[in-house]
């Protein structure tokens, strides 16, 4: 079978997997964004227990392999009555994991803003929360884009380990096809190409956004 006809034959199934991969990445990165932002703020401005919880969360999820986390969620929790379908387990695992990393990126971005801005805001009569929401976060979100785009790309690529708990994403489809036709080299070459195209597209979009929302006069790179 020629490479072209092989690609033609396997592409519908790979496309299905690609869609799942994109959904998985999209949901996980969004979940991670929301939780990560709370974690970053909690770690920076929270009181005792809140701060400790945030640090503990970040350390736990950064300190254990994603694969281990997925196994705990998918194969471990059902013993205690918590049952989730594999796609949901993958989404939760990836999202909770990404939250820890995003929290650190956000924290770095917030801390890179001059302390004087907070003081100035307070001097103008803003409450601390107001200053954080109106002064710090809008800037931090722009500063964070280069490192955050790394996280997006990592999440996309790491979503490929979800095959092990049976989420029907791109890697799972590819392994399934290859196990049947034994054309490992060709199948995974196509898969590598698909990932590459998506990653290139994402970094291109993020670069455009980064330039659009650049803070005038502030060097971030």
């Amino acid at each position, binding site marked *: 079978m020629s490479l072209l006809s092989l690609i033609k034959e396997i592409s519908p199934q790979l496309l299905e997997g690609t869609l799942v991969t994109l959904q998985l990445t999209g949901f996980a990165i969004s979940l991670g964004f929301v939780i990560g932002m709370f974690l970053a703020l909690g770690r920076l401005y929270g009181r005792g227990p809140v701060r400790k919880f945030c640090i503990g969360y970040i350390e736990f999820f950064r300190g254990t392999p994603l694969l281990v986390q997925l196994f705990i969620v998918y*194969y471990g929790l059902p*013993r205690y009555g918590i049952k989730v379908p594999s796609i949901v387990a993958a989404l939760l695992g990836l999202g909770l994991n990404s939250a820890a990393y995003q929290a650190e990126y956000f924290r770095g971005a917030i801390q890179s803003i001059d302390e004087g801005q907070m003081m100035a805001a307070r001097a103008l009569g803003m409450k601390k929360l107001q200053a954080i929401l109106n002064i710090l976060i809008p800037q931090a979100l722009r500063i964070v884009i280069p490192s955050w785009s790394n996280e997006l790309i990592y999440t996309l690529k790491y979503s490929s380990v979800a095959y092990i708990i049976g989420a029907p994403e791109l890697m*799972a489809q590819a392994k*399934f096809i*290859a*196990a049947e036709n*034994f054309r490992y080299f060709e199948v995974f070459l196509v898969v590598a190409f698909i990932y590459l195209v998506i990653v290139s597209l994402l970094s291109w979009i993020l670069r455009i956004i980064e330039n659009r929302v650049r803070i005038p006069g502030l060097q971030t790179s």
Partner: protein
Amino acid sequence: MRKNAKRLIMVGMLGTLFIFGLMGVSLAEKPTYIVASDIAWPPFEMVDAQGNYVGFDLDVMREIAKLEGYNIKIVDVAFDSIIPGVVSGKYDIGASGFTITEKRDKVVDFSKPYWSSDQAILIRKDSGLNIITALSQGHTVGAQRGTTGASWIKDNLIKKGVNVKLKVYETYPMAVLDLLNGNIDAVIQDEPASRASLAKEKNIEMAGIIITGEQFGFLVKEGDPKGILPKINDGMAKLKASGKWDKLVEKYFGK
């Protein structure tokens, strides 16, 4: 000084050559073949309490190696990675309850068949399903990736429009665990391995057997470049003649 150094290097090189020569001779005398097996599939391949690789396939491999005068090294490999590994030359023999199929025979060479098996369907005892309902009505059937059971569901049910979903797993125990956890409704697997699961897990039962009449064979690289297949076939014949084969069957399958 320089002369001495040169001499030393010469001696070192000769010594190295000598050692390699010896190794070459010993290799030529008794080759070592790497046997790949997915060692989570009792009673054909499993790990005993001491951490040794045991099971019918692996014991047969060891006995044949003894009879035919070669060494083997057994490695634990994911089932769906064994054939690609044999094709690329990473492993010499695949011994993992492989059904001889036309598709596989196109990329590897098989020994004479040594076992025949059918596919069994496992369900949870409390599920209230039977072999018909478990494989229809939108239920999800688990199977190990790359197995004939997975292909059977896909080719005989899904492709023919039966409303059933297939979920594939890296190892067979993962599929059983997911069945016990209630994430899937049934598991399809070769009958001997299914019976081994039944003996271990109280909450599952066999819904029924699909007669597929599959024949297991050991496999090597296409064209058998190392000439291993004649040795395996010859060794199997000798084992059967000596009665050792039946003893191994009894050891792992009872009766």
